[in-house]
């Protein structure tokens, strides 16, 4: 439903462009979880990871096709995003109205979304109506109609969202961030597109894009709930088995992030937003958890980080200050974010810089590292096994990140093996780099980043 997607866009923070920060928490501590993951391969070779569970009579499925909006053709930016608004707007013989009525009657909820690196779909259904629900999903995945009327309607909603935010300082800041960090890389484009790029997109463009991107070789599927492996095989063949064998995505180069810049969006408001972007390491890097643990100690812990302590608890300068690491397919970053009363913005920035400098120079203490490890190992089940949809999401991300079906069992040992010296080295390497700093507020604070 693009209505809520557009609304969500509207409320996301400035760092939308770095937005896998929130998800990373998903990897924190899978070890505790008693989740049994089965690999299921259908007759036609479609693969899925399944967690069988019958305690609530529902099924959640989530899947991803890689990559995402990086594949939007030049001049047609926003194509992927528009497409994700159209899968429940008519498929097969059913027009928009007919499709939505059947979906509602089936008691199922369907959603599609995109990121730069993947197009996601998900569905949640009642187990006793799974036949009809999966049939509708099959139609949506294989035969979306892309009729003109829904295209026009969804496009106008997206354009309304773009217009609605165009005078906000946040929109200016996002635009500035994208250009400053990513230069001419595809990540520098707004994946919502522009009014002009959206206007140029035709039904033919959508059909061609769908055909190129929805295939079996770039698909990852996660399923959770009241369904067994044999039944799932039939579902996988039905929903995905007739897609083309291979996708036609263009190669995307890795982004070369530009650090050391000072950015400022002038706006006269009572609170100044400060954001700082440092380099980070890829998910596949052997030192990934050294960075992850260091970040947790610096600003990742909810009420226990160094930044929280120095900026909020000791000085009362802010309501929230945190740091997070973000891993996209082609860029990695560590971002610090806060908002403070404008007349003390310079002081806040200085405290953050000092806290970061201290971490870069000395790293954490052994006690801090021990506590961080305990948290990171233990947190997964608690943060992410709260619902079927959350588990399905994790199953898909584990596949995208190529972490292996036994990663769950291995993870605790990987984290425990990280040494204090490794974490110190990671801190020194990443936090010694001069960050790119964005200040959104009345005036540039003295020290300037």
């Amino acid at each position: 439903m693009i209505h809520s997607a557009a609304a969500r866009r509207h409320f996301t923070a400035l760092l939308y462009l770095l937005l896998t920060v929130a998800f990373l928490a998903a990897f924190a501590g899978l070890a505790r979880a008693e989740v049994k993951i089965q690999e299921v391969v259908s007759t036609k070779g479609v693969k899925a990871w399944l967690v069988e569970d019958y305690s609530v009579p529902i099924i959640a499925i989530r899947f991803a096709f890689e990559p995402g909006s990086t594949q939007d053709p030049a001049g047609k930016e926003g194509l992927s995003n528009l497409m994700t608004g159209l899968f429940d707007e008519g498929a097969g013989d059913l027009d928009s109205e007919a499709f939505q009525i059947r979906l509602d009657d089936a008691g199922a909820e369907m959603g599609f979304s995109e990121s730069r690196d993947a197009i996601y779909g998900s569905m949640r259904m009642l187990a006793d109506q799974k036949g009809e629900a999966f049939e509708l999903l099959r139609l949506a995945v294989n035969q979306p109609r892309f009729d003109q009327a829904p295209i026009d309607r969804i496009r106008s909603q997206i354009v309304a969202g773009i217009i609605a935010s165009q005078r906000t300082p946040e929109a200016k800041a996002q635009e500035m961030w994208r250009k400053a960090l990513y230069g001419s890389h595809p990540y520098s484009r707004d994946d919502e597109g522009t009014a002009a790029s959206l206007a140029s997109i035709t039904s033919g463009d959508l059909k061609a894009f769908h055909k190129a991107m929805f295939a079996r070789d770039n698909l990852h599927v996660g399923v959770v709930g009241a369904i067994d492996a044999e039944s799932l095989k039939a579902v996988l063949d039905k929903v995905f088995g007739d897609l083309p064998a291979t996708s036609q995505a263009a190669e995307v180069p890795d982004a070369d992030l530009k650090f050391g810049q000072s950015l400022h969006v002038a706006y006269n408001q009572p609170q100044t937003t400060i954001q700082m972007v440092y380099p980070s390491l890829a998910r596949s890097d052997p030192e990934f958890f050294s960075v992850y643990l260091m970040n947790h100690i610096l600003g990742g812990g909810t009420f226990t980080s160094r930044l929280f302590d120095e900026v909020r608890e000791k000085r009362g300068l802010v309501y929230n200050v945190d740091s997070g690491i973000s891993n996209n397919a082609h860029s990695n970053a560590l971002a610090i974010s806060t908002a403070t009363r404008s007349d003390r913005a310079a002081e806040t920035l200085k405290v953050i810089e000092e806290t970061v400098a201290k971490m870069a120079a000395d790293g954490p203490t052994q006690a801090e590292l021990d506590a961080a490890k305990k948290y990171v190992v233990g947190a997964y089940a608690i943060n992410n096994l709260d619902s079927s949809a959350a588990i399905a999401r994790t199953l898909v991300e584990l596949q995208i990140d190529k972490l292996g079906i036994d990663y769950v069992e291995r993870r605790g040992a990987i984290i425990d093996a990280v040494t204090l010296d490794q974490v110190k080295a990671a801190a020194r390497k990443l936090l010694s780099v001069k960050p790119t700093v964005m200040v959104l507020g009345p005036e540039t604070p003295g020290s300037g980043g």
Partner: protein
Amino acid sequence: MLLRRDPAKILQRMANLPALRCGMLAALLALSSVPAVAQQQPSPGKNAVSNFLLDNGMEVVVIPDHRAPVVTHMVWYKIGSADEPPGKSGIAHFFEHLMFKGTSNHKAGEFGAKVAEIGGSENAFTSYDYTAYFQQVTPETLETMMTFEADRMRNLILTDAVIGPERDVILEERNTRVENDPDALLQEESQATLYQNHPYRIPVIGWKHEIEQLNRVDAVAFYDRYYAPNNAVLVIAGDVDEATVRVLAEKTYGKVPRGPELPPRVRPQEPEQDASRTVTLRDERVSVPSFSTSWVVPSYHTAQPGEAEALDLLSEILGGGTRSRIYQKLVVQDSLASSAGAYYQGAMFDATNFTVYGAPKGEEGLEAVEKAVDGEIARIVKDGVSDTELQKVKNRYLRSLIFARDNQSGMANLYGGALTTGSTVKDIAEWPDRIKAVTAMQVQQAAAKYLKPGTSVTSYLLPTAEAAKAQN
């Protein structure tokens, strides 16, 4: 809340957030009393919800869910911003923050460090009618959480040294949530206009000038009056059973002495409203204008039998998502609006509000959107709703109950929110049957009785006059 780095579902509990407008299930969870189990008679199986009272008056609810080794531990106090003394707005929320300071048994940060050590998560939130504290942890650490939580119910040490910086934090929280955001500023003004007498007119976070004056004496008085077992509800959802919780609760919370008897929660009530009012905010950050219209209507707690259920179904038929009348007419058929809908906040202790809203597709056309929304209300008042559309909406509500069981913390929130706004566990269990019993006539009557043009507050968020002119 103490920190807003937590799931949207908790954010929604903070009053007035636009997040309330997204999605059927979210609306249900946030807005109405929703039962745990869809069955008519909850079976006494191992997943049955149970509740009991401790000798000191603390109510306990246990919601077993054994799918993962996780428990959600929550303590809800029947104290929210609407219970604050006049002139002390924000004290309920301020106090929520102070609960994270040290006690006579544990210095500040010890509880949080313990939660972090086991990979747990924790936070707290405040609304008009309640303040709640929670941790999500592994079952073997539940007793430790209960011990810490019971400790801070009575043993907090409140000094000026902790109060000063925390007041600054809250002023920054107000800046983040309200002062920097024209939409939030307008919501605050609208609420203050909609309620003429009831304290729901005062923002949960408090008015800035009153927050600035809050002090230690206020905090201590508030703590001594409201933080006691006989004013609290313990909700535990997850990998536990009733027997275990009973033993642990008696060992921890059971040792806290009963507090002073509290008088019934009688707040100043709304007079009959007989004028329509408008509130307008122009801001240079706004490009697409929007409106919302609200009425004061009964909540689940104050309504006559069946009336709140009818309002709930009315809000869904009228504007609860893409199948609703408003969305279909304005967005799909007539292509007037980019967004439009309706919502009803049923889970409130006193009379609550019913709201419709909309925005055009660009900078023009707000008037037509508003008129068309009014037209859809008038159509229901005149012609009622069909049995088919009523049945579809009921089905959606009933199945959302099954989906709700998939989310442990959502279930805990649901019970805590209901029990602190005047509903009971029995009300929750009977809710599906009451929804099923609503007739098309009751929905029509609810619209006719409450959604009258002459008693509403309409709020407009508009571009500045200069910006609007430049566009033309």
